[in-house]
């Protein structure tokens, strides 16, 4: 899988490149700012662009803006945003169009190397990676009694992983349970929340996020 990294800190950029290369990815280009990123993506057409939200010159959100632009321009290039801070509403605003081939993670997540590589891979295949912090913020905000309270603790865990964008296979690896058990949990969750069973895993993420957001 071919990757472009956009990150202004050289140290971190190099570290990421090494981890990705070791993980079997091909790092085709490294960019230090949004302009370099756009050029690299146009030239190399990578599978995934890993982008730091804050980059020079303003150090605000040029990475995010460049990502939105790239997604509109080249929908087949997946984008994984790395942010210093995570805020659910802001994150959902970025996913609102489509969650396919899109990820939004807290920067520290790169330290959980296996999870991180898994997320890059997932996004590169057109999947989704939403930071657990976003999900817990969405869940934490809910104070009213509702269908969510009827979920068992295990079902809640499955829901969170689903919302992060994990596939059934990913979930059973993570929770160390059989695929059949995960499927049962998923069906039960959809039934309890009153959601229509989703055809594929991409749509499943959007449906769950939409539910959590409402």
């Amino acid at each position: 899988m071919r990757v472009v990294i956009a990150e202004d800190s050289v140290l971190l950029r190099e570290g990421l490149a090494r981890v990705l290369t070791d993980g079997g990815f091909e790092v085709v280009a490294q960019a230090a700012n949004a302009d370099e990123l756009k050029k690299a993506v146009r030239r190399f057409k990578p599978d995934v662009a890993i982008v730091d939200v804050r980059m020079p010159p303003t150090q605000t959100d040029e990475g995010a803006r460049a990502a939105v632009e790239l997604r509109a321009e080249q929908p087949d290039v997946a984008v994984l945003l790395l942010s210093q801070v995570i805020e659910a509403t802001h994150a959902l605003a970025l996913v609102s169009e489509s969650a396919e081939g899109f990820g939004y993670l807290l920067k520290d997540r790169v330290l959980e190397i296996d999870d991180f590589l898994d997320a890059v891979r997932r996004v590169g295949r057109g999947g989704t990676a939403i930071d657990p912090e976003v999900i817990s913020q969405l869940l934490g905000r809910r104070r009213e009694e509702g269908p969510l309270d009827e979920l068992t603790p295990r079902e809640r865990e499955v829901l969170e992983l689903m919302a992060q964008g994990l596939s059934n296979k990913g979930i059973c690896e993570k929770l160390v349970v059989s695929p059949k058990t995960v499927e049962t949990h998923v069906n039960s969750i959809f039934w309890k929340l009153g959601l229509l069973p989703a055809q594929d895993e991409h749509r499943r993420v959007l449906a769950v996020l939409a539910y959590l957001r409402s």
Partner: protein
Amino acid sequence: MTRTRWLQLALALAGVLLGLLAYRVQMDNLPLTTTARSIASVVAAWSFLVAGLVAWRRRPDNRLGPLMVAVCFALLARQFRYSHDDLAFTAFFLIGELGYALVAHVALAYPSGRVTDRVERVFLYVAYVVAVAFPLAILLFHDGEQRLRYFDSRPHDSLIAVVSDGGVVDFLQDAYAVTGYGVLATTFVLLIGRKLLLATPRARRILWPLLLAAVVAALRAVLDSALSFSSRPPAFTVDLFWWQVIALTALPLAILWGLLRARLARSHVSELVVHLEETAPGDLRDELAVALEDPTLELGLWLPERDEYVDAQGATFLVPEDGPTRAVTLIEHDGEPLAVLAHDPTLRDEPKLVEAVAAAARLALVNARLHAEVRAQLETVQESRARIVSAADEERRRIERDLHDGAQQRLVALALELRAAERQLGGSGDPNVERLLSSTADELQVAVEELRELAQGIHPGILTQGGLGHALEQLAARAPLPVTVDATDERFTPEVEATAYFVACEALTNVVKHAGATRASIAARRDDGLLVIEVSDDGNGGAEESVGSGLRGLTDRVEARGGSLVVESLAGSGTRVRGVIPCAS
């Protein structure tokens, strides 16, 4: 008594005496006259004498007084031409028309006593020449037996007659009726109209009664001129006589009114003194405008340290040029400039009034200047306060950025290296070393998280990245009690966003610490150039603004942005903190 006083006394006596004689001359020589008409014409002349003497006494520097006394003598002299003494007839016929030119002179010279306008000066020269030239010409051609217009049928002999020609005299009398009473009087009316048109509002208020009387008198002359060529019944001319007498008597009375008006205005000064007791420094100009009867009055206060004049609001006051359209009066205090008045030029004619008003207002002006000074300083302080808060905010932003982009990036990179090394060993190395690597990386990860929390507290990065609405959402999500957020997604300037955010942050902290609330809500919306941020809870209430130093600091912060902060907290009904911050888009 001074010489002027003796002169005035002598003129008064002479006027009275001449008036009595003029009455006698009319009764003896004018068969058509009545007692009433003779008395009226003398009284009209005397009214000029009285008004003239009063004006002369009150305003010795103004020529109007002597001019009006002269009008009196000219009008009385006119009556002596009816005498059958040849010398008296010749002399007084010659100067008999001067009275009307003098009346025009008085009207045009009012109120300053001088005729400065060029057109008016030319007009007066012509009027004086015409008033003497025609009688002179008539006397040169007069035939003693010929009856002159307005005269009785008995003969009057001109001592300077050269050729006796009744036809020429008739022509001259007609010509005079046309030029003197017709053209000149009409021109005079037009000049008065022009004068009123050009006058400032204040001048118009002083001018109109006199000018009205003058116009009435002049119109009568115009009508007289027109009638002299028609064959109207003589009964109509009787009405014209009364018209003239009334207008002529009203004229000096109007001038007297003008003088008394100035005195009346001076009584405003005593009112001013009383009012100033309770006048706010900002209203001082209005009080002065009333006292000086000049609604256009402007007031500038001298600020020594700014080396300029300022208005009551503390803004720079540009002093207009002292000229024909605007007059400027400086007011000093202990030899230093205190204030400047820009006013109507007519006030130049009443220097005593201006002086009295300035004297009465001096203390209030000193007070107003202090007030303006304080306002100016307050403005400076407010500006610097806003700058200080901005600098502090900017500093927070910078520290947060430095932490994120510097230390945190470095720590993440370092931890990543360790993780990579750990993976490379992959259980093939010394277990102790691997454990050490692993625990160091874990510690680093914790350090990174703590650092992020710290940076967030200094300045939430999401505020810069996502805006106020998103930052408030995050704030609510982290709170240990349910908080609903209703916030606009609009972006504002970093200063406004930071101020609103910290209001919400501090208020929410207070809710958690003190309120005993079960839920809270945050609202942020734009309302007509203002950003309104509101945090309410369902707690105990009773929070006093003075209690929490946090709230005090918050108030300072909001006020530094030109906004305000209100805390409503009734015991038992929750607390509501409401900040309003100007956010001109």
